[in-house]
């Protein structure tokens, strides 16, 4: 078993144009910075990206948008990105907006081997259009399908050579369920340790879900909204 690769370029080398990718992160928190940069370098295009957000103009998925590598975004919230808005309004970019909990749960369903789930979010709204509904205990629910993706790319705090992952604080967000959902999952971590060094009690994502892992470098971890309080 050898899951460890040298760097992001090696991890993503088999990703091709036209593929569907899941990318972890919430806003700019917990995004796979190294792999996004490698995808920009590789120049693959016509990508469908499943990710809660679309980055900002010059960071995160915004870097892929700048190079027009994305055909379609599947997200819950895409504000804070002028280039995204421009491509959307000009028709260059397709976007499917879905409720955040539905996004998370459709990833989860995929990772748990469930083809679909019934969810309440969006009943009676345009999100429900064209969807099958079923009534349980007097309430209507929407049938929502598990996502099908070629690759999931996630970012963890620590990982080991078996692919086990530990996330930090709110940088966890979508990463664990995307790690479980990818047909092939790539994990970039801040610190890669030998198997045995992570406490098995404290691992968030078991390595069975992870195909390739590497220690990333030069994390910028940009803050979107820097809010502070004064010392009294």
């Amino acid at each position, binding site marked *: 078993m050898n899951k460890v690769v040298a760097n992001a370029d090696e991890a993503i080398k088999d990703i091709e144009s036209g593929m569907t990718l899941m990318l972890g992160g919430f806003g700019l928190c917990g995004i796979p910075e190294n792999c996004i940069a490698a995808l920009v370098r590789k120049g693959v295009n016509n990508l469908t990206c499943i990710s809660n957000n679309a980055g900002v103009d010059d960071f995160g998925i915004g870097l892929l948008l700048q190079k027009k590598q994305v055909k379609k975004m599947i997200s819950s919230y895409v504000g804070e990105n002028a280039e995204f808005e421009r491509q959307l309004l000009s028709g260059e970019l397709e976007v499917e907006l879905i*409720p*955040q909990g539905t996004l998370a749960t459709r990833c989860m369903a995929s990772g748990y081997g469930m083809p679909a789930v019934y969810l*309440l979010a969006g009943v009676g*709204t*345009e999100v429900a259009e064209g969807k099958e509904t079923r009534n349980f205990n007097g309430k209507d629910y929407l049938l929502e399908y598990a996502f099908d993706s070629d690759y999931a790319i996630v970012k963890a705090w620590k990982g080991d050579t078996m692919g086990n992952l530990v996330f930090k604080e*709110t940088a966890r967000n979508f990463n664990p369920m995307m790690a479980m959902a990818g047909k092939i999952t790539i994990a970039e971590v801040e610190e890669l340790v030998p198997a045995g060094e992570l406490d098995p009690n404290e691992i968030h994502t078991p390595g069975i879900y992870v195909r390739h892992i590497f220690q990333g470098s030069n994390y910028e971890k940009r803050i*979107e909204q820097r*809010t*502070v309080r004064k010392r009294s």
Partner: protein
Amino acid sequence: MGLNKEQIAQRIAKELQDGYYVNLGIGIPTLVANYIPEGVNVVLQSENGLLGMGPFPFEGEEDPDLINAGKQTITTLPGSVFFDSAMSFGMIRAGKVDLTVLGAMEVADNGDIANWKIPGKMVKGMGGAMDLVAAAKNIIVAMQHTNPKGESKLLHKCTLPLTGVKCIKKVVTDLGVFDITPDGFRCLEYAPGVTIDEIKAKTAGRLTIADDVKEIAL
């Protein structure tokens, strides 16, 4: 006249009860955290994966891995816990969150809410709002009573695409406090300096006035 944003938040904070798990949306709802009454312990849920949201960090102590759903840097508190987005919306969906406070563009007198999209303009997305309004047991809307053009945001029927149907229980605006009842909006309290006539004139949806209507006390 009427309440300013801080005062709207202050009035909503009086609805908090000891032991509540609360999700506060972006904007005026976030300010509610500044007015939690003495002796009332609530746990703030941030849907990106945190229970026990603390105040903003001191300058120099910002942590990029620790943000709230508005992407602001925050801190934890004793007893805080992190989890993933699926679990976060799982606890919301399962009704474990006692109160949700969020903003709105429009509220209808049957409890419908619209707050995520203006057709023809930039569409940013619904984020977690649809999940929250579909599942929360108790939802309070915090908003201005009228839009910048002076038009009522309390309507008989929403004109914008809906976020959720028949889900809102209470609305607190700069002009007053309103319950949603089978007869439409019911004015329970009015802001200092605001008359019932003004509320009637600025409410487009069905409106009744409670017999014991009173001035908002902050």
